[in-house]
């Protein structure tokens, strides 16, 4: 088509449009009757224009999706005039300007709502109603709506101007600071609760709708502005809805009834975003996101950010529960749980374990916890000190007793040895009588008997019996007279063998202290002091011996202290020639023995470690022993088997009597020895009482403080 022709058609077209609408058809028919072709062209253009109009062809500019006033040269609102209008930015709801409201002398934010948000007259009605309730909201953390109105057919708000950024741009600041996120959301939740109490729902809580001022204080904006998604789910192509879908509650995506708990969900979704840096659900497309919101469980926060603890995670997920009844009942319930979390109190979302309660109490009541710890420490210290003092004291006492019994045993062993030496000297003197050798050589029993009487009765010592045995071990004489043993073979007796060994070695002048045996004639336990009888050529002719019973002579030297008992251990001889090789010891003397009690075997041979060998003993029996026997603090008295009063634990000291094989035992009861003196006990009691007193005082103080805090809390 040529420009000329087109211009012609246009002029005709224009002239038709200049007519009143009702007259146009008639005008077209009449005015161009002369030119059917032109008439046809104009009619066609009219049809095309009409079709384009009814289809909305090119109605909206290519990219001006929301028709917002670009210029505000003469903007007025009621009586207010404005200056310094500046564009701030564009959000989901529309374009925001900053302006100075002259008559109020304040800077305000001027927000034009996109027409797409208010496409029907019902929308507009609802918007006006909600705008009124929003204008009633007065809360430091809610962006105040000063007034609303319409300008060039566009609805606008005049709002409090918040200098700062939206939370959407600050999300990353909170990922590393979960506690700050919790504190922020506590404030936001309280603000939302304030609106709920005034019957205003937000419906579109998301980071972009939380403004942070210069001090970081949150201000919730765009209350109730979100369109009802259920009513408009299909036309959700714009970014505004896309940004919202991730924060939408499941019931909202399904077009179901929206309640205050839907806003609790939104608060939880924001908290989730702050804690993890990403919204709870985000799909490839809006529909995908909505699917996730309806059907999926949010990924555990701690997988995305390990800095989030269990409790905060539980709080957040409680908000995001698909089941409304499982969420917090109100925004304030959420705020209070966040506050409890921040102060370390137990939360509704995650009840504590017992251990956590104790830890939390301590963390919250540092002074009290410190005091209680101090009290426990003092108590423990006192107890440890008392125990260690007592232990040290006991150890000292034990050592002293061990030393004491060992020393006493040595002392007594020495005394006993001296006594034995004295006995031995008497016997030794007797061997010096030359008549004995002569008579033994002659085998004159009667002569020997007579001399024996002389010797024995002339002695001041309490010899029980004396006897002479020839070199073959045959009893030659016995005093007092005992014909039944004369001529008997005693070569197997230890006292004979010991003396014979001394005689054959030609030592002479020595005596032998025998093992203990039970006398044939009197059935009494005794030992013998024997000595070899030699002729001038030092030939062994026989032995002379005297037996010693323990009751009369040896017993007299023993200590008799109340708390110490003395016993004498001795090796035993065989009872007949057939027995041999038996190394046995008996307790020869013991204060617990009563008449008619036989000596008790002493089982701890290893303890004695001394097996006197009558033949090969290199040392004189009556010389001082070099043997040391260590004391025993856990000694069981073998006599306790016949005398019950000796049962229990004893501390025993041992000392060998020369090289005789005899051992002196001095024993003291363990519990007597190491029982603490009353002064020590008093000291310990005093200190313990002092510690307890301090402890009780501190505990009372803690309890008083606790009770006071409870009282204050309840008021």
């Amino acid at each position, binding site marked *: 088509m040529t420009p000329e022709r087109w211009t012609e058609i246009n002029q005709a077209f224009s002239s038709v449009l200049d007519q009143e*609408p009702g007259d146009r058809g008639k005008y077209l028919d009449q005015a161009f009757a002369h030119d059917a072709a032109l008439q046809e062209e104009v009619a066609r253009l009219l*049809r*095309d224009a009409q079709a384009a109009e009814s289809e909305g062809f090119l109605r909206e*500019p290519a*990219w001006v999706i929301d028709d917002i006033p670009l210029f505000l*040269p003469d903007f007025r609102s009621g009586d207010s005039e404005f200056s310094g209008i500046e564009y701030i930015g564009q959000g989901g709801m529309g374009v925001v300007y900053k302006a100075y409201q002259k008559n109020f002398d304040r800077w305000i934010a001027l927000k034009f709502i996109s027409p797409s948000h208010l496409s029907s007259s019902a929308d507009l009605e609802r918007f006006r109603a909600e705008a009124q309730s929003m204008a009633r909201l007065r809360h430091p953390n809610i962006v105040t709506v000063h007034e609303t109105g319409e300008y060039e057919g566009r609805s606008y708000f005049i709002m409090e101007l918040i200098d700062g950024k939206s939370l959407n741009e600050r999300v990353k600041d909170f990922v590393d600071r979960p506690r700050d996120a919790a504190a922020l959301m506590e404030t936001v939740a309280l603000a939302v609760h304030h609106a709920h109490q005034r019957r205003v729902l937000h419906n579109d809580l998301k980071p972009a709708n939380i403004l942070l001022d210069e001090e970081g204080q949150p201000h919730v904006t765009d209350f109730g502005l979100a369109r009802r998604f259920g009513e408009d789910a299909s036309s959700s192509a714009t970014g505004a809805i896309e*940004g919202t879908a991730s924060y939408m509650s499941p019931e909202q995506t399904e077009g179901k009834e929206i309640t205050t708990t839907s806003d609790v969900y939104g608060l939880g979704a924001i908290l989730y975003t702050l804690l993890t840096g990403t919204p709870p659900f985000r799909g490839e497309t809006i529909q995908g996101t909505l699917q996730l919101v309806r059907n999926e469980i949010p990924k555990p926060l701690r997988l995305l950010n390990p800095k989030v603890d269990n409790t905060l995670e539980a709080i957040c997920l409680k908000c995001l529960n698909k089941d409304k009844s499982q969420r917090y009942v109100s925004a304030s319930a959420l705020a209070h749980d966040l506050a409890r979390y921040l102060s370390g109190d137990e939360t509704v979302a995650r009840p504590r374990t017992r251990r956590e309660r104790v830890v939390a109490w301590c963390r919250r009541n540092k002074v009290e916890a410190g005091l209680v710890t101090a009290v426990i420490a003092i108590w423990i210290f006192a107890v440890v000190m008392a125990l260690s003092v007592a232990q040290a004291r006991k150890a000292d006492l034990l050592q002293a007793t061990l030393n004491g019994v060992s020393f006493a045993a040595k002392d007594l062993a020495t005394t006993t040895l001296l006594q034995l030496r004295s006995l031995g000297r008497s016997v030794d003197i007797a061997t010096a009588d030359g008549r004995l050798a002569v008579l033994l050589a002659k085998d004159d029993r009667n002569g020997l008997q007579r001399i024996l009487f002389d010797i024995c009765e002339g002695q001041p010592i309490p010899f029980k019996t004396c006897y002479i045995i020839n070199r073959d071990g045959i009893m030659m004489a016995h005093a007092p007279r005992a014909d039944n043993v004369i001529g008997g073979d005693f070569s197997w007796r230890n006292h004979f063998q010991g003396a014979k060994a001394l005689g054959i070695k030609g030592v002479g002048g020595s005596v032998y202290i025998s093992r203990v045996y039970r006398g044939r004639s009197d059935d009494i336990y005794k030992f013998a002091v024997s000595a070899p009888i030699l002729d001038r050529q030092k030939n062994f002719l026989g032995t002379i011996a005297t037996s010693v019973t323990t009751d009369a002579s040896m017993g007299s030297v023993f200590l008799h202290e109340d708390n110490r008992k003395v016993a004498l251990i001795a090796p035993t001889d065989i009872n007949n020639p057939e027995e041999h090789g038996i190394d046995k010891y008996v307790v020869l003397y013991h204060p617990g023995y009563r008449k008619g009690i036989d000596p008790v075997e002493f089982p701890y041979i290893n303890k004695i470690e001394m097996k006197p060998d009558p033949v090969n003993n290199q040392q004189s029996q009556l010389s001082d022993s070099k043997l040391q026997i260590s004391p025993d603090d856990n000694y069981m008295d073998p006599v306790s088997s016949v005398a019950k009063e000796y049962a229990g634990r004893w501390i025993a000291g041992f000392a060998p009597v020369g090289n005789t094989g005899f051992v002196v035992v001095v024993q003291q009861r363990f519990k007597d020895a190491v029982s603490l003196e009353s002064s020590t006990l008093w000291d310990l009691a005093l200190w313990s009482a002092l510690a307890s007193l301090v402890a009780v005082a501190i505990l009372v103080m803690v309890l008083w403080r606790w009770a006071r805090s409870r009282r204050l809390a309840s008021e």
Partner: protein
Amino acid sequence: MEEPQEQITLLLAQIAEGSVTAKEKLIELVYDKLHRMAGTMMPRERSNHTLQPTALVHEAYFKLFVGKPLQATNRAYFFGAAANAMRQVLIDYARKLAARPEGKRVPLLDGILDTVKSTYGTDMLDLNNALEELKRMHKRQWEVVTFRFFGGLQWSEIATCLDVSTSTVEKDWQAARGWLYRSLKGKGNDAGTMDGNKPSILVSA
């Protein structure tokens, strides 16, 4: 080089005096700005995909004028230039895309092309071809469509730019749009539909 703002103010003054070269220079200048901004303005995040072409033009305007309001006439000139520039940005992009589909994509411009396609069922390059034809036949109508469709200007603003009455602008728009509709949709060419089926525009405008 002059400050963009001063430069633009000067250009606007020259445009007001009827300078055609000033108009072209302004378009060139705004084109540069828009072109660069379109390339850098990626939709920031999926969740925050709220950046729209309106915002782009606004941003360009406020960047060039540092937020200072202009006189209504100058604003009209400016946005007229912006509309031209924006159209140029878009057409250039569509051409480049047609030649090398695997080339670098600008999501913002992709979004516009998609929206135009899905909303009006027409390809941007086809539309541009039709517009070129229209320009040849009637330059003012072409300008009206450009200001309206690529700039979102109000009728009064377009009238200011073109120094004609608002009703003329509206009639130009009706004619141009009817013609474009016919060219692009191929509908209404059938003469047989005319009789007894008078367009309702004859009854109510």
